[in-house]
Structure formats: structure tokens, C-alpha cells
């Protein structure tokens, strides 16, 4: 039989100890502040357009047609102004057409174009601009290519609505907050085992189950409160808040289960640190997959429990997914959370019996 009064007292004791340690509390607040700061320092837009400057006394008609998605052309009155625009970084490169450009083209001669680039322009951009100019002139001189391109977009077409790094980093930062709290919980458990305070508690009417439940509630609550606060500030709860909060709550339970597992195998702080680092890197791997798409191409990533958690948060925040679209992921998260919590609890219980 679960004794709720004892659990309540134990949770209150844990939270009181947390709040009593002013330094600990201050550091937690400070950490939160820096996580939020990192979020706001990340770029809030994606620059997906190549901006080129043009100086053309006689503007080739094809120039206007060539402008479109991915390329923006800015015209300048003189070569000098064009150069300044390049130097000031207003355009990626500047192209100066000769005065008699159209005449040269008409005679079939090869015109010479001046390409102004900054010394730090990546070589691939320079090469791309040169290829573009070639293509432009070939189109102007009427050299059609006998190729028909059949294009198929795979996945959501994000053209013009790319997700900025600031939004991409939310699942990573949110998950790191939960993970670090879980790490802290594992440390607390290991410390109690090392100092034998758990054994001291067990001579009172408090049972092992009461202790685990209380610790689980404390760890989950602390992680959940912090991550919720983080998401409120960063706007991560603007879409489907209940769905996000449910996902995070299950995530916090999942990490609590992991913490119990670590606490059950770790002998001291050092081993908590060792196992914790493995958990930290392993579990944060799927977040990197979101931040850097294409980095991890193996399907093995789907075996990492956190994959479903960060994917759910990412899809809800950035693609507007709802309950209907992510229900299967939620079941996976729930299954992993319950499984890990049970495994962790059993493992810890075994250590004490």
C-alpha cells in the first residue's frame, strides 16, 4: 500500500533541501538564463537566397527572368558603388557588365565580365556565380538545352519557410535540461547510497517504494518545471501546449527511469558521472539529427528512446503536428518511459534487498 502522506513529506523534504541550498537554486536559475540566452542568440531567420550585385549600363533582358527563388539581383549605378556593396557585405558578389555587352553578344564574340568578390567568399559560391553567369549568357544567346527535368520533392517542401536554427535548437535545449536534471537525480541517489542515509530512512516506517516514488516525483517535477519555463519563454508552447507538455512529462519520467538505473549501478559520484555521460551522449544523439539533418543516416537512431520524444517536439513546434499525427510516437514514448521506470525501480530495489 502506498503511503501518500509519507511520499508527500519526502517530496517536500527533497524540495525544501533544494530550495534551502541557495547556491544550488541560484545556479539552476543562472543555468536556465544561459539556456534561454543561447536560444535568443541563435539566428532567427534562414538566409536561403544568394544576393548578387549588378552593374550593367545596358541591362540584358534575360537578367530579369533569371531572378527568382534562390537568387536576388540588386542593380547599382556604377562599378564603384557595386564594389562598395561587396565590401560592405550587402551582396555576396558583384558582376559588372561591359558597356557594349549586348553588341559583343550580337557579334558572337566572348564578352569579359568583371566579378567582384570578397576574399572570404567561400570558393563554392564563387564557382556557382561563374556557372550562373555562363548559363545566363547561354540563355541570352539562345542555346536551349534539350533536357527536360522531372522533379520530385521528397518530404515537406520548405522553400521560403525554412526552420531557423533558433527553432531547431529548442528540442535539443529542452532535452538537455531534462537530461541534466536526470543526471542530478542519479547523483542524489548515489550520494544517499554512499552516505547510507537511505538505510537510515529504512529503519523508520518509510519503505523503499516510498523513497523511490518520492525521488521520482521530485526529479520529474524539477525537470518538468524547468523545461516548461524554458518553453514558455522561447515560445515552444505556442502550438499544441497540452501535447508538448504531455510529451515532456513522459520524457521527464523516462529520464527519471534512466536515473534510477544509473543510481542502481553507480557506486559513487565518479561512476554516476561515467554512466551519466554515456546516457547524455546517447540520448542527445537524436536531437543532433534534428539540428543537423542528414548527419545520422542510420535507422538505428530509432532505437534510442529519446528519438520519439525530440521528434514529437520538433514536429509539433515546427510543422504544426497534432495528436492525430503523433499518437504512435506518444505510445512509444509512454512504453519506453514506463519500461525504463520499472526497470530502474526494480534495479534499485534489488540493490537494497
Amino acid at each position, binding site marked *: 500500500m502506498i503511503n501518500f502522506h509519507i511520499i508527500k513529506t519526502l517530496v517536500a523534504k527533497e524540495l525544501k533541501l533544494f530550495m534551502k541550498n541557495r*547556491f*544550488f537554486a541560484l*545556479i539552476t536559475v*543562472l*543555468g536556465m538564463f*544561459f539556456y534561454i540566452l*543561447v536560444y535568443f*542568440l541563435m539566428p532567427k531567420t*534562414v538566409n*536561403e537566397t544568394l544576393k548578387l550585385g549588378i552593374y550593367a549600363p545596358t541591362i540584358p533582358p534575360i537578367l530579369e527572368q533569371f531572378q*527568382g527563388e*534562390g*537568387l536576388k539581383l540588386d542593380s547599382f549605378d556604377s562599378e564603384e558603388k557595386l564594389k562598395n556593396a*561587396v*565590401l560592405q557585405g550587402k551582396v555576396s558578389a558583384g558582376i559588372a557588365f561591359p558597356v557594349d555587352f549586348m553588341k559583343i*553578344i550580337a557579334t558572337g564574340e*566572348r*564578352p*569579359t*565580365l568583371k*566579378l567582384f568578390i*570578397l*576574399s*572570404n567568399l*567561400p*570558393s*563554392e559560391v*564563387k564557382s*556557382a556565380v561563374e556557372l*550562373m553567369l*555562363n*548559363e545566363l549568357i*547561354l540563355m541570352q*544567346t539562345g*542555346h536551349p*538545352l*534539350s*533536357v*527536360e*527535368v*522531372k*522533379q520530385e*520533392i*521528397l*518530404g*515537406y*517542401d520548405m*522553400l521560403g519557410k*525554412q526552420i531557423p536554427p533558433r527553432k531547431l535548437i529548442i528540442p535539443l535545449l529542452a532535452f538537455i535540461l531534462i537530461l541534466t536534471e536526470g*543526471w542530478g537525480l542519479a*547523483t542524489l541517489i548515489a*550520494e544517499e547510497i554512499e552516505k547510507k542515509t537511505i538505510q537510515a530512512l529504512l529503519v523508520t516506517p518509510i519503505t523503499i517504494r516510498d523513497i523511490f516514488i518520492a525521488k521520482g516525483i521530485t526529479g520529474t517535477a524539477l525537470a518538468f518545471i524547468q523545461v516548461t519555463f524554458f518553453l514558455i519563454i522561447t515560445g515552444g508552447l505556442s502550438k499544441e501546449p497540452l501535447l508538448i507538455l504531455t510529451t515532456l512529462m513522459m520524457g521527464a519520467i523516462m529520464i527519471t527511469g534512466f536515473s534510477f538505473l544509473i543510481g542502481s549501478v553507480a557506486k559513487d*559520484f565518479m561512476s*554516476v*558521472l*561515467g554512466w551519466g555521460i554515456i546516457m547524455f551522449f546517447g540520448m542527445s544523439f537524436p536531437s543532433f539529427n534534428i539540428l543537423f*539533418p*542528414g548527419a*545520422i*543516416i542510420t535507422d538505428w537512431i530509432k532505437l534510442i528512446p529519446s528519438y520519439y520524444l525530440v521528434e514529437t517536439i520538433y514536429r509539433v513546434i515546427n510543422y504544426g503536428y497534432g495528436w492525430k499525427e503523433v499518437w504512435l510516437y506518444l505510445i512509444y514514448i509512454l512504453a519506453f518511459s514506463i519500461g525504463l521506470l520499472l526497470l530502474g525501480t526494480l534495479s534499485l530495489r534489488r540493490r537494497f534487498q
Partner: protein
Amino acid sequence: MNLKRIFILLGKELIYSSKSFLFIWILVAPIFVTLLFSLVFGTLFREKPRLGIFDLGTSQLVEMAKTTDSLSLKLYNNHVDLKKAVEKGVIDFGLILPPDYDNSLITGERVELQVYTWGQSLAKNRMILGVTIANLSRKISGIESPLKIETITLGDTKSIPWEDRILPFIVLMAVFLGGVFLPATSLIEEKNKGTIQAVIVTPITTAEIIIAKGSLGVILSMLMGIIILFLNNAFGNQPLLLLTLLLLGAIMAATISLMLGTLIKDFTTLFSVWKSGGILLFFPALAYIFPQIPQWLSKLFPTYYLITPIVEVIQKGAGWQEAWLNMTVLSGVDVLLIVILLVIIKVKNPFTA
């Protein structure tokens, strides 16, 4: 102060610390991160558009694309793998070349190209890849470049590749992970177990203990810094200058560690400080990775004065003359930290029973 006693203490520290998991992790982590960043993220961060080709014939386009600077190329042996790679964002474009593509181009026969586009591919990448494929196809069909391009380079700054941008982060991690954790954990452990109180009743003084533990941090920190610079082929032409900088950085790390070890009572609090305060150390490296972050902010963080000269020496070939100002500030920070440490030890007198 007795040098012989300090060396004996240092030797014992080295023997006992090397047996802990933390020590091994401190040695392994920076190497692991270097490999991870270099192999996975180093290539991923490259801003070149990524083209994948599955060639059903033997088109020249493949060989030509290999030498084109405007894209990075990946070849596939079948249609399924190519499509999967596009879906996962490994490549921006997946191009299937028909069996007789080159002949069709030469004879002017209409030819169909199947292109898969990754939905998250940036507009400029799509444009660059499209233009490049068109341009290479034109070359195969025998159409020569219709223009001459005169490239004029402006400014004298160099583009910093992603592999170089992550170097400060890796260096800082190498120097600070060991430097901060080892002396602090050693001090806390000895305080908790009471062994430090046992030692100071012998002729060994507090200062000798502090110097021995700090020296271990400095040695480990420097050693890791050297290994990481070697692994990244970053020793350059100024090894002595780099060693001096690493030494100053190691002193900073070890002094911070001793301050933490003196003030903090348990590992949980140490862990919390690292969790939240770590970002104070790593902020300049983060700002270096993401130039969008206001760079002046980095100057407020002491590690800026360590990574800036290191980066300048490695990437810009700077020497003592260019590095002296940052080195002076770094030395000043070290002196200030040492003074603070001495005050803390004097005021708190933490090792008395």
C-alpha cells in the same frame, strides 16, 4: 614550502586519480569529440550544396561533377539508396542519369532527367545545383563558355571553414574538462572522506596540498591541449607560443577548479556549477562557431583571451607580437584568480576539521 613533499603528493595524486573513471573520461572525451566533430559535423557543416548521382550509363557528367567546386558529390549504386538519401537530407538533389545521356546531349535529342529534391534544401542550393547540372550538360554537348570572367578579389579577410570554427570549442574542452574537474573532485572527495584533515596534521601544509592538486590539473590540462592540437594538425609554426598559451589556460582551469574544490562541499553542487557555469567558459567558442552571435560579448568571458590568440596563431599565422595583448590579459586573469583563491583559502580555512 617543501618541493620534495609537493612532488610526493603530486605523484600520489597522479597514481590515485589515474585509477578513476573520471581520469579516463577526461582523456577520452576530447579525442572522442574531436573525431565526432571532424568526421560527422565537420563535413556536415560545409555549406556546399550536396548532389547525389545514380548513373545508369557512363556519363562524363559524373567525372566533371567531381571536379566542380560549387557542389559536393556522392555516388549511388541504385535508385532506392539515392531516394532514401534525399529523404533523409544527406543530399539536396538526387539525380538519375539515363543510360545514353551524353549521346542524347551531343545529338540534341530530347532527354528526360529524374531529379529528387530534399524538401528542406535551401532555395540557393537548389538554384546552384540546377545551374551546375545545366552547365555541365552544356559542356558535354560541346558548347563552350560564352564569356570571360575577370575575378577581382576585395578585402583581405579569409573564409573560415566549419572544421576550423569548431577548433576553439575542442581546445577549450580539452583544457577545461580535466583542468576543472580533476583537482576539484579530488579536493571534495578528500574533504568528505576526511583524509585531507589527516594529512594536514602531518608536516604537510595546506599550500603544498593545493599546489600538488593544482599541478596535476595543470599537467593534465596541458597534456590534453597538446594532444588535441596535434590531432587537429594545429601546432603550426609557433609551438612555443601555443604551449605558453596552453599553460596559461591550464593555470586558469586548475585555479578555477581549486576554488570550486575549496568552496564546494559535495559532488552534486560541483556538478550543478559545471552544468550552469560551463557555458561561461564555452561562450566564446560558441560565438566563434556561430558568427551571428554579437562577437563583442565574447570579450566579457575570460576564455576569450585564451582562444583568440590560439586561433590567431593556428589560423592566421600570428606570432608573439600579435598575441601579446591577449596573453597579458590572460595572465592578468590568472593572477586575479590565484589571488581570489588565496583569499578564499585564508578566509574559509576549509581544510581544518
